[in-house]
C-alpha cells in the first residue's frame, strides 16, 4: 500500500516572513495519499492546512521559505520544480484544485464554456489547437458535465455563472478540475458554502468520480462529519504539525492522539458536556517547543517539550506523533 502513493509529503517545514517576525507555519508535516483514495486533512484555524495546499500547488506567497521537506508526486519532488514547470505540467494538469467558494471562483463576465475550455487549451499540446482541437475539447467538456450531473450540458457552455446555483457552480468547478485528467484533485472545503442536502450530493459526486476516473483526492476540511462521510483516510493537523493519520474508521473509533480525542469529543454528536479544549492555539510566531499541543494537553509529559515526538507507525499503517505511544508496542 505504501508504495503506490500518488502524493507523499515528507517532513515539510515552511516559514513565512511577516511584519511581526518569522511565522513557522508548518513544522514537520507528513501526508500520504495512496492511489485511488480520498484522504482528508482536518484541522482547526491556524493548523496550516491552507499553507499545505498552497505548498503542494506551488503557490506559496513570496515571503514563504521552504526550511525542509519534500513533496513527492509519483516520486518527483515538486518543491524542486520551477514555477514554469509547475504551471506547464503540474497545476491544472497533474494536480487540480476545487476551491472553497463556488460563488467567487468563477469569473462573472465570461461564459462557463470560455472559462472551462481555457483550462483545457492551456494544457493541450501544440497540435491540439485549431478547430478540430476546439471541437474535441468541447466534446470532452460536455462529457464531463454529464458526468457531474449538470442537466443540458450543451447549453451550459454558453451560459454565465450567475445563472447557476451554488451547488451547480461547484459541479462546474469539479468538471473543470477533471478536465485534464489529473492524478490528484485537491478540494479545499468545497462544500462549506452549500446547504446540507446539496453538500451530500456533491460529496456523493466526488466519491463516484474518484472511483470512475481513478483519481485520488485530497479533501481539506474542518468538519469531521464530512470527513466521516467521504474520506477513506484522514490526517489530523494541529498548529502546523501532523499529529495523527490513518483510516477514518480507526480515527473515529479509537483516536490515539490526545488532540484528536479532544477534538472529536467536541463534536455535538459525541459531546456529553460542552467544555471544548482549554487554552488557545499558539501563534506560529512563538510556537511552543516540541509537540505544539503540549501546553493544552491533559496527558502532557516532560518529554513533550523536548522535541517533536517521532511518528509511531502501527502495523495497520496508522500513524501517531505522541510520546504516549513511544515504546515497545510500535516501532519508531
Amino acid at each position, binding site marked *: 500500500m505504501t508504495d503506490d502513493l500518488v502524493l507523499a509529503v515528507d517532513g515539510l517545514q515552511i516559514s513565512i516572513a511577516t511584519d511581526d517576525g518569522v511565522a513557522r507555519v508548518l513544522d514537520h508535516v507528513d501526508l500520504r495519499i495512496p492511489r485511488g483514495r480520498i484522504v482528508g486533512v482536518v484541522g482547526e484555524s491556524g493548523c496550516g492546512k491552507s499553507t499545505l495546499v498552497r505548498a503542494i500547488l506551488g503557490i506559496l506567497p513570496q515571503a514563504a521559505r521552504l526550511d525542509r521537506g519534500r513533496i513527492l508526486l509519483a516520486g518527483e519532488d515538486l518543491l524542486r520544480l520551477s514555477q514554469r514547470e509547475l504551471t506547464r505540467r503540474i497545476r491544472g494538469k497533474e494536480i487540480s484544485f476545487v476551491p472553497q467558494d463556488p460563488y467567487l471562483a468563477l469569473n462573472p463576465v465570461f461564459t462557463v464554456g470560455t472559462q472551462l475550455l481555457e483550462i483545457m487549451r492551456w494544457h493541450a499540446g501544440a497540435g491540439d489547437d485549431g478547430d478540430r482541437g476546439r471541437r474535441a475539447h468541447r466534446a470532452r467538456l460536455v462529457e464531463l458535465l454529464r458526468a457531474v450531473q449538470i442537466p443540458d450540458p450543451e447549453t451550459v457552455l454558453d451560459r454565465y455563472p450567475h445563472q447557476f446555483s451554488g451547488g451547480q457552480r461547484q459541479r462546474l468547478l469539479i468538471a473543470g478540475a477533471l478536465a485534464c485528467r489529473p492524478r490528484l484533485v485537491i478540494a479545499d472545503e468545497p462544500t462549506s458554502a452549500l446547504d446540507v442536502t446539496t453538500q451530500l450530493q456533491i460529496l456523493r459526486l466526488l466519491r463516484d468520480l474518484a472511483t470512475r476516473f481513478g483519481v485520488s483526492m485530497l479533501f481539506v476540511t474542518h468538519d469531521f462529519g464530512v470527513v466521516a462521510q467521504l474520506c477513506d483516510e484522514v490526517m489530523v493537523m494541529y498548529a502546523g504539525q501532523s499529529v495523527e493519520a490513518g483510516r*477514518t*474508521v480507526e480515527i473515529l473509533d479509537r483516536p490515539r492522539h490526545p488532540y484528536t480525542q479532544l477534538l472529536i469529543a*467536541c463534536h455535538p454528536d459525541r459531546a456529553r458536556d460542552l467544555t471544548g479544549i482549554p487554552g488557545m492555539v499558539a501563534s506560529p510566531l512563538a510556537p511552543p517547543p516540541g509537540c505544539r499541543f503540549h501546553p493544552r494537553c491533559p496527558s502532557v509529559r516532560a518529554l513533550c517539550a523536548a522535541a517533536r515526538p517521532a511518528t509511531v507507525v502501527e502495523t495497520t499503517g496508522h500513524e501517531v506523533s505522541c510520546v504516549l505511544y513511544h515504546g515497545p508496542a510500535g516501532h519508531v
Partner: protein
Amino acid sequence: MSDRVILEVDRLETQLGGERHLLGRARPPVRAVAGVSLALRENEILGIVGESGCGKSTLGRTILGIQRETSGTIRLDGRTVSSLAPREARHARRDIQYLHQDAAAALDPWWSIGRSLEEALVITGVGPRAERESRIDRMLTAVGLEPALKRRYPHELSGGQLRRVTLARVLVLAPRIVILDEPTSGLDLSVQATVLGLIRELRTEFRLTYLFISHDLSVVRQMCDRVAIMYFGRIVELADTRCLFEAPAHPYTRMLLEAAPRLVAGQDLDAIAIHGEPPSPTAVPSGCAFRTRCSFAVVRCAEALPALEPVIAGREVACHRWREIGATVVAPPSLA
C-alpha cells in the same frame, strides 16, 4: 423550562422585494415568511432549522422587529406588538435581542469594544456612566472575558472572543428572549463547544429564552428543547428534539437528517434519497412546496397546501401523507 408562553407568533407573513422605486422596476416579491405560527415557552431553546432560502433569518428579523411583517400578529406576554414601524416595533419588543451570525461584522470596526458595548446602553437610556460601566464589566465577566478587553478593537480579537463580545452586548440590555442566528458559524469545533456551553449557562443564569436558528443539525440536537423545520417560508414540522430526531414525520425532515454529516464512518452515501434542488423563490410550486423533491408526492400535494396538523400534543406536521409514510428511526444512536 416552564409552560408559560412568552412569545406568540400567529400566521406571520413577510414579503421581501416588490417595492417600487421612483425611476426603476421593482424586483419580483418573495414571500420569505409565508404563514408561520409559533409559541415560544419561557426558558426554552426552540430551534429553527432549514436550508438557505427557507426564510429562517427573515423570520428572526421579523420577530425582532427590524423587518416589518406583511401580515399576521406577534404577541409578547399577551400584548400585541405587531403592526408597528421598525423603530416603534423595536421599542415595544425591547425584551427581544438578536445575535448576528457574523460576530466580527456585527461590530463597528472603528469603535473599541467598550464603546460599542456602552453605546447599547446609551441608546436605551441606561443610567449614569458608572452604572453602565459596572453592567458592562459584569457582563464581560459573565461571558468569560476580561473587562480589560474593553480597550481593544474588533480586529484584535479571535472569532471566539468576538462571539462572546456580541453576547455580552446583548446581555447588557437584560433581554428575556434572544434570537441566535447561527451562533456557531465560522467557529472551530473546540471553540464552538465552549460557546455553546456558555450559551447554556447564560440561559440558566439570566433566565433567558432562545430562538436558535441554525442549519447544523448536530448542534440543534444537542442544544434545543424543541425544533421547528422550515421549508420555503413555512414550518413543516415542529416537535420535541428527541422525537424529531428519532422518528421524523415529514419527508423533508427525513431527508435533512439523512443528509446531515454524522460522526460515523462508512456511511453508504448512495442509500440516501436526495433529489433535486430547492426551486427558485420566485417560482414556488403550487400546493406543498416540497413536492418537487419528495419521494412520496402524489397528485393531492400539488393541489392543496398541507396545513400544520397536530400529531400528538406538542408535535405538528404539515404533510398530506404523514400517516401513511410512518416514522422510521433515521439518526444513529449516539448520545447516551
